[in-house]
């Protein structure tokens, strides 16, 4: 149950020619656009708003097979249980930590990659580099997790082998067995898998930068780095801010497969995120109500985060999402 950001973004693209014309006139004028957006609005209503009705589950002791009206009502018991559970705070910490690491490194690396690819003059090399960089995106996490496990293995894993050959370490390190390292492995593997994919949107943004700006900058004596710093980056800044605000909403919901597939008993205290927690302590135990309560908590926090980030962006005079 996430905040549907899509239609808002869509609506933004339709310029609001407010002012003298009446609302109906504007409406008539934009009827094609409205018509085009209709399917998406319906989609969002059906898949995002109607299911919110299911939130009543959180206040019941839901048992499948019975009508929702025949269930036992328990008030806020599920929430009380949640906030009293010591595991919950661990989960909150892990989710936030891993999401922030992924968000920060994911965005920075994608932007840098987009800038670098953009500067490449040789078209063949540019296309090849871009394709290779976003290929891992299409590997499912099940396969990717096994690749990572093998690469980090102490028994002939490539990472350990290289470090050993370079005499950086004496003994192979069991990377996946060190709890404190788990967050960073998640972050690094996320960057590896998503960097190319994430760069696509920035490349698109860079492509729309007015070439005149570059020419003007060149005439003023700006070198490549100067042009990137003073032209490219400021031009794609709105996109960066909007993506950042949008991603804030996913801070508490990101990550399931990746953590689930890479975790092991040794690092469980650092690996369990909300989605895994809901699965282990909710759905697997048929505690659907509890799982719903956790979901509500996440949704509410996400709302706060999105509005918070949006507000900060507004204060800083940046482009906003809402």
């Amino acid at each position, binding site marked *: 149950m996430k905040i549907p950001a899509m239609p808002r973004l869509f609506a933004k693209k339709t310029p609001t020619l407010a002012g003298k014309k009446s609302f109906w006139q504007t409406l008539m004028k934009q009827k094609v656009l409205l018509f085009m957006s209709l399917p998406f609005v319906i989609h969002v209503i059906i898949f995002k708003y109607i299911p919110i009705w299911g939130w009543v589950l959180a206040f019941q002791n839901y048992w499948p*097979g019975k009508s929702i009206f025949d269930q036992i009502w328990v008030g806020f018991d599920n929430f009380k249980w949640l906030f009293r559970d010591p595991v919950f705070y661990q989960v909150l910490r892990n989710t936030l930590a891993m999401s922030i690491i992924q968000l920060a490194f994911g965005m920075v690396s994608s932007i840098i990659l987009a800038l670098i690819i953009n500067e490449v003059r040789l078209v063949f090399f540019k296309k090849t580099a871009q394709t290779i960089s976003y290929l891992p995106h299409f590997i499912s996490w099940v396969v990717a997790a096994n690749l990572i*496990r*093998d690469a980090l*293995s102490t028994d002939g894993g490539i990472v350990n082998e290289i470090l050993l050959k370079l005499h950086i370490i004496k003994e192979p390190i*069991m990377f996946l067995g060190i709890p404190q390292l788990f967050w960073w492995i998640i972050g690094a593997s996320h960057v590896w898998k998503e960097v190319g994919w994430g760069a696509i949107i920035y490349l698109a943004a860079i492509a729309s930068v007015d070439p005149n700006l570059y020419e003007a900058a060149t005439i003023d004596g700006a070198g490549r780095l100067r042009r990137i710093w003073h032209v490219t980056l400021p031009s794609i800044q709105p996109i960066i801010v909007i993506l950042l605000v949008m991603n804030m909403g996913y801070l508490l919901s990101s990550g399931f497969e990746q953590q689930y597939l890479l975790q092991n*008993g*040794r690092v469980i205290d650092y690996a369990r995120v909300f989605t895994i927690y809901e699965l282990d302590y909710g*759905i697997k*135990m048929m505690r*659907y109500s509890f799982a719903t309560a956790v979901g509500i908590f996440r949704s509410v926090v996400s709302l706060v985060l999105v509005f918070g980030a949006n507000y900060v962006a507004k204060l800083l005079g940046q482009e906003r999402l809402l």
Partner: protein
Amino acid sequence: MLLLLMVLTVTAASVMVSAQKTKTFTVFLSEPLPDYPGSTIVGDIIEKETGVKLQREYLVGDLETKVGLMIASGELPDMLTAAHFTSLFKDAGMLIPLNDLVEKHAPNIKRLYAKHWEQLKQEDGNVYWLPIQAIPYDTDDSHYPELGFFINKKVLKEAGWPKIKTLDEYFELIENYMKKHPRINGERTIGYVTLFDSWRSFATTNVPQHLLGYPNEGEFVPVLEAGKFVVRQYHTSNAAKAYYQKLNEMYNKGVVDKETFVLNYDQYIEKLSSGRVLGTFNQYWQVQEAQQILLRDDPESIFIPFPVVLDETIEEYQRDVPYIQATQGLAITTACKDPVGAIKFLDYLIREETQHLVQWGIKGQHYEVDENGHFYRTEEQLKLFRDPDWVRDVFGGPYFYNSFPNLRGIDKNGNSFMPDRQPHLIYADSHESEKEVMDAYGIKAFTEFYNKPRPRKYYPLWTITIPAGSPAHIEQTRMKDVLNAYVPRMVMSRTRDFEKVWAEYVKAISPLMKEQIKVYQEQIDWRMENW
């Protein structure tokens, strides 16, 4: 007149339906098989004899999710199996009681399940599902025991075929071999691996009960005290401490694989089948895949099971008391329009003739009978059945057992229902490499290393389902969390820190067992009284 016409039309319609003859039943099966190929040797015969066509849905993805969806949506097939979630359908009132149906229409089911019938009755006195296996007569023996400390054949051969009894002996053999052969096939020798991947981690945490001589009961063991089975925990027992301490010692000596706790199941199988692992504890079905690869590619490195205990004073009874999984099975749902037809079909499936067809095949074509009435297969027939693809897609037997009620054990003529358990053929059908080991120990099957199991009427504890979402269930999850977090720490800590970590572990796990023991004790008492 109008009425007459209507009656006529209705009759005509019903005549037309029965003229079609073939009935179709929808069935959901909780095993992941490819879709039924449409026509197989076994399937065609069954379809011709019963006039029943099955519309099968096999499990894709996660069973838990699928069951949740089916219950929540109320969209049910005519029949279903759902492993250990079967009882949830009963709780939701979606299954029909079978007692009367069996009594009236299914003489074979009644006869063949007679021994188990009382165990199947739920609290309301009704039977809602037929367990997938029935053992109507005597039990038979498997090729490999259910569980054991497995050791590489090379180690045994070099040490002169010793019989391994205790944990210390077991690790001593491995350690010595490792010292002499630090590398196998050019790669580092791995002394011992233990499987710790998500739900399969019981392969590591179940061991203390076996070291105390118990068979696989699950998380707790019922101990016979003054004529009554009392549920006890073993996670903080002396055996558990000795076991984790031994693993700790071996870990620090480099015998236990450094990355054993981060391996997933695929990696575990990969390591075992490389032939350079010397030992592992597990239930046989979890290492079977590796063993089959070794038999094909590296038969000198196969794994031989031993019933290892903590010390000589302990008598081992690690083998399963033959049991049926009374808490799960095939059920007929409330959505089934023709329960009589369904039970008649199941009755046909379970009778001995059909079971011989499904498991052995057609006489003279897939098996032969010797002068004593014993079934056997010729070398050519064996070859056919060693190809799992042929057996599944052409023969079709697997589509009628595993998910449908079937018979196990020995039939009236002394034949096993399962070809690979045919008593006098276990040795004869073994691989040359297996035979060499059996000859060296003077046995005819690896199960002979083990004692015969002691009868335990309730057996086993692990088939008891803890009510979903109950305090005991939450406690169980928390206990598993503690095991997950502490077992690797105990094994991987420095030797001088072991005592400290052990004390922490005992403190963490001790308060997390009370509710579960209560539930298990109640159920064990109930079973002892009612089975």
